[in-house]
């Protein structure tokens, strides 16, 4: 019952979407989960002035971005002063080398991981495996996905594509847990399996939700406690994060935290908010002796160059845009074939992977605006999707790798013809008269449109014609009336 191992790529979006749409289990799992998440989010903000809070969130993030290079330097200085060692990585490859290097310096065989989307973006686990280092995910959802040799299908709830029966099968097949539908039993089994691994781990790798420049503090948001375990039990902790995650002050954290948990899962708060400011100090009883922070660029500083695309970097990774996306809800996270799926993936991944690979993602939206409406930091996601469509067809500023990949002579010619017609009113009116006359000949099959819809038929007379007739009629009547009087 567990799904066969399958590799998803953004290039195969259409095929993957076709498969997902035809899979009733996937459809049902996502629909149920997204309905629940939307409902919970709505309830979680009921007591709040949401508009004011979102504006505050946006302003905190934009203030941080406006000072980004200075704040990164301040963060680095503060962290170093606190004993946290800071590393900089241009891309995934370099970030993986840094993490692997720290592991090797410490003679590490075994790494335990807390949930980190940046480490997914880096494909860190594969890189560590090549170096002979075993990396185990400890977030329950990530653990299940890893056991099943898959990738997360959602940035907050990695195993949301799986239902209870599928998970039971996975745990049975990979860990020998007796098949059960009892979630408490499965959770307890995972607890026991992972505790051993926490104790044995040489290094813990985590992500970061907010990095505070003012104090050099790394904030981690979680419910399970695996993040605290990862950052406390092993002797070495490596935190990896994108360079955009920095905020200026500690007081910037409460609004973002309030927005994050409510937007993500509709929780008013998560179980743990874990703030790490230094490694274990002299005399302290637990905690890692070494803490490292790896700041990963991976395309972000290029995004930063562009006034409009820059808004992509506001994101706090809550996943609300995917929870509310009618496309994501139907095709699921794997269909996107990218680390970050859904609307945020569609506006972020083209920068990370280039438009050649991801050209179908910015168009995979009806621009319904649900993502922008719920974004806790007010990222204008639909506008950014349109911008990336421009880049794809070569009418943007060329600031995205692979810009122009979708430009085709045929399509340009089609739009140019449309432009000509729509800027020549007489021809336009003539065309609609002809269309109305020939409506009997209008095709009843219009490619995929008519797979599930009837073909629209041009009206006998266009609005232009009807209004003209009516005006004439009126004038005639008025003339008659005047003649009579």
């Amino acid at each position, binding site marked *: 019952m567990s799904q066969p191992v399958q590799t998803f790529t953004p290039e195969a979006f259409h095929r993957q979407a076709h498969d997902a749409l035809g899979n009733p289990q996937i459809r049902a799992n996502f629909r149920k989960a997204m309905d629940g998440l939307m409902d919970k989010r709505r309830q979680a903000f009921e007591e709040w002035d949401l508009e004011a809070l979102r*504006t*505050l969130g946006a302003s905190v993030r934009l*203030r941080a971005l406006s000072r980004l290079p200075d704040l990164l330097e301040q963060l680095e200085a503060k962290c170093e002063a606190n004993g946290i060692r800071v590393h900089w990585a*241009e891309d995934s490859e370099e970030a993986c080398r840094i993490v692997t290097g720290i592991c090797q310096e410490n003679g590490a065989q075994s790494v335990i991981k807390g949930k980190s989307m940046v480490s997914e973006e880096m494909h860190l686990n594969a890189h560590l495996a090549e170096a002979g280092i075993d990396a185990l995910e400890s977030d329950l959802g990530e653990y*299940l996905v890893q056991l099943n040799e898959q990738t997360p299908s959602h940035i907050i709830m990695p195993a949301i594509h799986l239902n209870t029966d599928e998970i039971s099968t996975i745990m049975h097949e990979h860990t020998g847990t007796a098949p059960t539908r009892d979630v408490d039993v499965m959770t*307890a089994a995972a607890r026991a399996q992972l505790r051993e691994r926490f*104790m044995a781990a040489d290094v813990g790798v985590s992500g970061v939700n907010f990095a505070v420049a003012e104090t050099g503090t790394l904030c981690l948001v979680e419910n399970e406690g695996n993040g605290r375990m990862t950052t406390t039990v092993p002797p070495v902790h490596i935190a990896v994060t994108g360079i955009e995650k920095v905020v200026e002050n500690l007081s910037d954290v409460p609004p973002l935290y309030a927005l994050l948990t409510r937007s993500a899962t509709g929780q008013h708060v998560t179980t*743990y908010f874990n703030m790490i400011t230094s490694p274990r100090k002299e005399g302290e009883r637990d905690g890692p002796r070494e803490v490292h922070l790896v*700041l990963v*660029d991976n395309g972000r500083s290029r995004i930063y160059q562009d006034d409009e695309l820059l808004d992509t970097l506001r994101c706090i990774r809550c996943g609300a845009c995917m929870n509310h996306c009618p496309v994501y809800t139907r095709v699921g996270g794997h269909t996107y074939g990218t680390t970050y799926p859904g609307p945020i993936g569609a506006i972020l991944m083209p920068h990370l992977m280039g438009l050649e690979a991801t050209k179908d993602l910015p168009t995979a939206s009806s621009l319904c605006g649900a993502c922008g409406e719920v974004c806790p930091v007010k990222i204008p996601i639909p506008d950014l999707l349109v911008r990336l469509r421009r880049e794809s067809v070569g009418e943007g500023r060329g600031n995205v790798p692979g810009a122009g990949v979708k430009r085709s002579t045929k399509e340009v010619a089609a739009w140019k013809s449309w432009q000509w017609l729509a800027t020549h009113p007489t021809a336009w009116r003539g065309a609609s008269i002809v269309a109305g006359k020939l409506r009997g000949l209008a095709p009843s099959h219009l490619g995929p449109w008519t797979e599930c819809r009837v073909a629209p038929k041009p009206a006998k007379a266009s609005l232009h014609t009807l209004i003209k007739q009516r005006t004439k009629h009126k004038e005639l009547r008025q003339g008659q009336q005047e003649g009579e009087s």
Partner: protein
Amino acid sequence: MTARDRILGRLRKGREERMQRDGGRGIVIPEADASVIGDRGWSRQERLQRFERWLTSVHGEVIHCETDDWTETLCRILKQKGIKRLALGHEQEVARQARQALEGKMDIALVDAARDVESWQQELFSQVDAGLTSTGGAIAETGSLWLWPTVDEPRLLSLVPPIHIAILDAEAIEDTFHDVMVSHEWAGSMPTNALLVSGPSKTADIEQTLAYGVHGPRELVVILRH
């Protein structure tokens, strides 16, 4: 040139060019009203109610008692929950009083938590029934405790044992996270690790069904002293 120089260089270049483009305006930051995150002005009663409502809504237990005889409440809880081995510090006031009340009186082993974890990790992970900690205070708005683990009450004491018993004074509950940060001047004095704890460890990773104690405690009991 290091990666650091190149990254910072690109960011600075981006920022400078932006300034040139828009006449020095830079990124436009919307005006925001920070009071949305603070300024609650709740009464003591409201604070208590909110704290309890939110914490119990996420499966936390709140048990009220008089400050003077809180250790009796502790004894009752230990008995009720069948706790045989309790880990705790010894210098912290809460730990001192608990030890005084418990030592030799009940059939409960008091496990010293103020030890280097390396010397008792296996014991901590598999042989302790509950951890007792003090708290710095709490947040009414979210039903959260805030903890700054210390040498006497290390980080894992509130995480590894299956039950976490936390002692909280009613007057230490403040309205919001923001209020706590400001009134205790966190920005100038962040410890190695600061924590908000709101309920027991939980997951909903198996088909959205809540399950407790996935990695941390499956129970959080707050003894609220008045």
